[in-house]
C-alpha cells in the first residue's frame, strides 16, 4: 500500500500549482523524509532486492544450500506453457476488472452527482465495500455464487445457466473478476465523484445554453475534463489487479479449477510458498514487478500526453 499511496500524492500535485519551499537547514528535509524512507527501504526495497538476488539462485526448501544459476529460472519460465497461460489470464483479468470497476464507478459517480440532498447517503453506502477486507469480500462472493447453497446460481438456473465455478473455469474467472471489481468500484467512484464535482457548474450551464442535452454534456464536457482522474485511476487499477487481488483469488477459487484463475501474483505464491520453488517464484515476482513498471512507464509516456487540456 505505501507504493500506491505515493501515486495518490503525486496526482493532485500535478493538477495544482506546486509551491516551492526551501529549508534553512540541509539536514531537516532528510529528517522529515526519514520515516517514509525507512518504511520504503525495509518493506519494499529490501524485499525486492532479495527477490532479485534469489531469482538468480537455486536454493533447497530448507535454505541450507544455495547455488548461483544465472538466468536459468527466467529461461525456464518462458518455456513453461503454464506461465504463458497465467500471463494471458492475468491480462484478461486485469483488463476486465479495470474496465468493469471504472465504468461502474463512473456510472455511480455520475448518478450521485445529480443528487442534491441524498448524495451524501449514497456516497457513504457506495464507499463501504472499500472498507471490507479483500478476503471477506472474496468469501462474500463465494457464498453468493456457491453452486449448492448460493443465491445467484439459484436464479441463474431459472434462466437456464448452470453455475458451478468449482468445475467451470470461465465461471471461476467471472467470479473473481466480479469480486475484485466490486471492491474497487468504491475507490473509483470516490475519485470520479470528486472529479465530477470539481467541473465548474457554469461550464454545464454554458453547454446547456449551447444546445447540449444532459447525456451529450456528460460525454463532451464532463468526461474529457475527467481525463486526468481517469488516467490516474487506470494506473491504480492495473496495479491493484496485478498485486492486490491475491486475497480474493485465495478466498474464492484458490487458483482453480485446473489453474483457470491462477493469475501471476497467485502463481508466485503457489510456486514459492506451496511448491517451495523459491528461485522460480522470485523470478516470477521480479517479472511481475517489471511488467507493472513497463505498463506504468508506457501509460505516463504515451497516455498522459493526451489527457492534458
Amino acid at each position, binding site marked *: 500500500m505505501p507504493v500506491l499511496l505515493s501515486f495518490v500524492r503525486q496526482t493532485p500535485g500535478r493538477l495544482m500549482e506546486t509551491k516551492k519551499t526551501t529549508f534553512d537547514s540541509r539536514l531537516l528535509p532528510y529528517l522529515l523524509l526519514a520515516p517514509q524512507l525507512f518504511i520504503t527501504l525495509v518493506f519494499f526495497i529490501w524485499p525486492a532486492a532479495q527477490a532479485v538476488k534469489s531469482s538468480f539462485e537455486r536454493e533447497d526448501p530448507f535454505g541450507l544450500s544455495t547455488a548461483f544459476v544465472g538466468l536459468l529460472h527466467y529461461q525456464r519460465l518462458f518455456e513453461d506453457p503454464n506461465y504463458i497461460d497465467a500471463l494471458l489470464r492475468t491480462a484478461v483479468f486485469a483488463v476486465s476488472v479495470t474496465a468493469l470497476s471504472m465504468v461502474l464507478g463512473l456510472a455511480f459517480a455520475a448518478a450521485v452527482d445529480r443528487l442534491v440532498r441524498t448524495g451524501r447517503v449514497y456516497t457513504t453506502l457506495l464507499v463501504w465495500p472499500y472498507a471490507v477486507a479483500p478476503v471477506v469480500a472474496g468469501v462474500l462472493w463465494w457464498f453468493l455464487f456457491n453452486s449448492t447453497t448460493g443465491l445467484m446460481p439459484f436464479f441463474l438456473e431459472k434462466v437456464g445457466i448452470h453455475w458451478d465455478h468449482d468445475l467451470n473455469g470461465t465461471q471461476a474467472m467471472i467470479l473473481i473478476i466480479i469480486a475484485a471489481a466490486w471492491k474497487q468500484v468504491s475507490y473509483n467512484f470516490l475519485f470520479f465523484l470528486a472529479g465530477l464535482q470539481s467541473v465548474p457548474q*457554469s461550464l454545464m*450551464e*454554458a*453547454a446547456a*445554453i*449551447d*444546445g*447540449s442535452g444532459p447525456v451529450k454534456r456528460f460525454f463532451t464536457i464532463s468526461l474529457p475534463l475527467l481525463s486526468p482522474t481517469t488516467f490516474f485511476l487506470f494506473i491504480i487499477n492495473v496495479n491493484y489487479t496485478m498485486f492486490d487481488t491475491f486475497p480474493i483469488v485465495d478466498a474464492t477459487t484458490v487458483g482453480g479449477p485446473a489453474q483457470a484463475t491462477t493469475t501471476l501474483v497467485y502463481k508466485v505464491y503457489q510456486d514459492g510458498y506451496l511448491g517451495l520453488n523459491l528461485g522460480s517464484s522470485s523470478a516470477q515476482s521480479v517479472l511481475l514487478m517489471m511488467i507493472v513498471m513497463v505498463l506504468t512507464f508506457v501509460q505516463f509516456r504515451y497516455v498522459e500526453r493526451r489527457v492534458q487540456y
Partner: protein
Amino acid sequence: MAGIKIAGVSKIYAGGVKAVNSVSIDIADGEFIVLVGPSGCGKSTLLRMIAGLEGISDGEVSIGGRVVNRMEPAERDIAMVFQNYALYPHMTVYQNLAYGLRNRGTPKAEIDARVAEAARMLEITQYLERKPRALSGGQRQRVAMGRAIVRKPAAFLFDEPLSNLDAKLRVSMRGEIKRLQRRLGTTSIYVTHDQLEAMTLADRLVVLNGGRIEQIGSPLEVYHAPASTFVASFIGSPAMNLVSGELHGNRLAIGPAVIELGAQAPASGPVTVGIRAEDLRLARDGEAALPLNVDYVEELGAQRLVHGQVGDQMLTVALSPAIAIGEQLSLAIDPARLHFFAVDGGRRIGEGSVPAHASAPVAQPV
C-alpha cells in the same frame, strides 16, 4: 432578433424567501438593458431565470413573443456570457465557438464561415487553434463573446462579464461590448454591480434592490431624477448627499441654514434632501448659504472632493481645484437641483429635472 417581455416575475425559494419580487420590464428589440444593484439584489437570479438556468416561481418571460417559462435554455434562442467566461478548457478556441453550432446540426461550411466572421470581428483569428488556458483574461473574454455571437441569438445575456478583468481592460472591453451590440443590434441584458459600467453601457437602467425594481430609466434620468434615496445613493460617484431638512412653504431648512426655493415646495414638514456633490458651488457675497466645516479634502486631479459637516450632517462637495479651501466654506445651490425624498420609505417627492439633452439615448455611429 426580438424584444423580451418580463411580466410579474418572482423567484421564491424554499422557506418563502423572495429573491426576485414581481419584476416587470418591457425590453424593446435591439435595446441594451442593464440590471444594476448591490450583491443579493436578485439581478443575477433574474438573468438566470430569463436564460432558463433557474425555474420561474411566478410570472411570465417571453422572448420574441414566445412564452419561454417551460422551455430548456437551448430552446430560448439566447446566448450568455458568464463572469468566469465558462470556456470549455479542453477545446480550442475554434471548437469553443463551434460547439453550439455543431449541437444544432449546422453544416460544416456555415460553421466555418460564422466562426471566421466572429473571430475577425473580435480580432481573435490568430488564436483559433489555441486552448483557453493559453489566452489572457481579455482574450478569453473575447472568446466568450464570440461564442455568444456566432449563434446569432435573439438576445445576449451578460452576467457581470467584466468583473474578472483589471480596471484598464475593463474600460476598453466595456467600449467594445457597447460597439459590438450597436453593430449587431441584438437585444441585450447586462448584469453588473458597478454603477459606472451600468451608466456607460445602458440604453435603459433597471435599478434593483431587495428583489424589487427601484427605478427603470435612461442613465441620465436615473442620475438626475432618482426615484428613491436608494437609487440616489447607489448611482453616481461620489454618492448623492442625503441630509435631513424641513420644508416650510417655499423655504428649506437644513440644520442652521435656510434656503429660499423661489417656488412653492412640493411638500411640507421633514424631508430627506438629496444634493449632488457637483451641484454645490461657493456662495457669492450676500447669498443665502450652507456653512460647511471642512473635515478633509480628496484630490482627484480634475476636481477635488471636500468632505465636511453642515450642522451635524455629513456633506461632500465637488469643487474645481482652482478654488482655495479654508476651514469653512459657504455653499450655495440652484434650488432646481435639489431632490426631495419622503423621510418614510425614501420615495421621491416631485418631478426631477433632466437636462434637455439627456432624455434621448445618444446614438453614435459605429
